[in-house]
């Protein structure tokens, strides 16, 4: 199917955002944020696919004419590392919040109106 991977992207984004908005637990919200970002992996790798292309590694198979786009794979790699870093930092902030108040519910933590 020509557009199916892209529909999956839209679905993942909506599911992740829905989880973020209805959540009552900070850790759950951070995981929903990861879900939202996962959609970008699918999108990146989806736009770079070439039908009938091989993976862009030519050590054992030698140079082939048709290969999948390598640039999006490099971008996705960068994306994964960025996500890992942000998630780690967010988790430490969540631990800090939990330590102060003993709760992880964003509704209980909300003190100042934005």
């Amino acid at each position, binding site marked *: *199917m*020509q*557009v*199916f*991977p*892209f*529909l999956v*992207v*839209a679905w993942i*984004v*909506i599911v992740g*955002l*829905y989880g973020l*908005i*209805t959540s009552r637990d900070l850790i759950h919200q951070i995981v929903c944020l990861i879900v939202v970002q996962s959609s970008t992996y699918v999108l990146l790798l*989806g*736009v*770079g*696919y*070439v*039908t009938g292309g091989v*993976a*862009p*590694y*030519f*050590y054992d198979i030698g*140079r082939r004419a048709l*290969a*999948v*786009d*390598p*640039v*999006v*794979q*490099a971008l996705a*790699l*960068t994306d*994964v*590392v*960025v996500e*890992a*870093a*942000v998630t*780690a*930092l967010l*988790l*430490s*902030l969540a*631990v*800090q919040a*939990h*330590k102060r*108040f*003993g*709760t992880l519910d964003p509704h209980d933590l909300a003190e100042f109106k934005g």
Partner: protein
Amino acid sequence: MTPKLRLWLFAIAAAGLVACYLWAFGGLPGFGNYPGPYGPEILKRAIPETNATGVVSAINFDYRGFDTIGEEFILFAAAAGMSVVLRRLRGEREQQQDRSPADEVMNRNVPPTSSPLRVATLVLVGPTALLGWWLATHAQTNPSGGFQGGVILASALMLVYLSGESIAFRRFSPVDLLDAAEAMGAGGFAAVGLAAIVQGLPFLDNYLPLGSSPGTVTSSGTIALISFLVGIEVAAAFILIVGELLEQTLLRQVRREGKS
């Protein structure tokens, strides 16, 4: 906002967002029909120019190496930030003698590790570390690179934790050494780029000898070197990150063992 209002507002907004996405995806060339010039151009030039048969690594560490240095420093900053936040919390907690609400909530009992788990994990530590090392140093030929290798190296140490040897885990992850390793990895990457400037070349130019034929261990110039430095940095950063998070529970365990 009441939860119900929030949900309704989100429902409408999400419908709009999905409509936007669908409208946009209509303009894409369809799955499998990647059109653009960037990919084929790189595929054409990667092996002749860099002698690296792993084109994705060539992109990551040579063509778009500047992105990679930014991304590496993102990990660096995140690990530094985590250290600041969590170490200070640990310091506060060690000073407080009274129990905070958090302690009451997380009063779990950690079960002792079973023997099969101990044996399995301890046996796997060596091979995992070796695998991580191999992946980090062979970016120019494998679908691997500094990042993947570094994470696997870090997980080798986590296997030590899983086997129940939490004291050994703490001894093998001294904070100062890890900070230094992480900084040397990140700083080394920047230094490799600056060394190019010293020679009058553009930043992050591939100035090391490219090797005689593509796809050998010594080919691809700075790509292999940068990949190795990135591997060190990522391994140190992940050990720091996981170690800091685990310390939050380890402290309680050690304290409980100390009291009993």
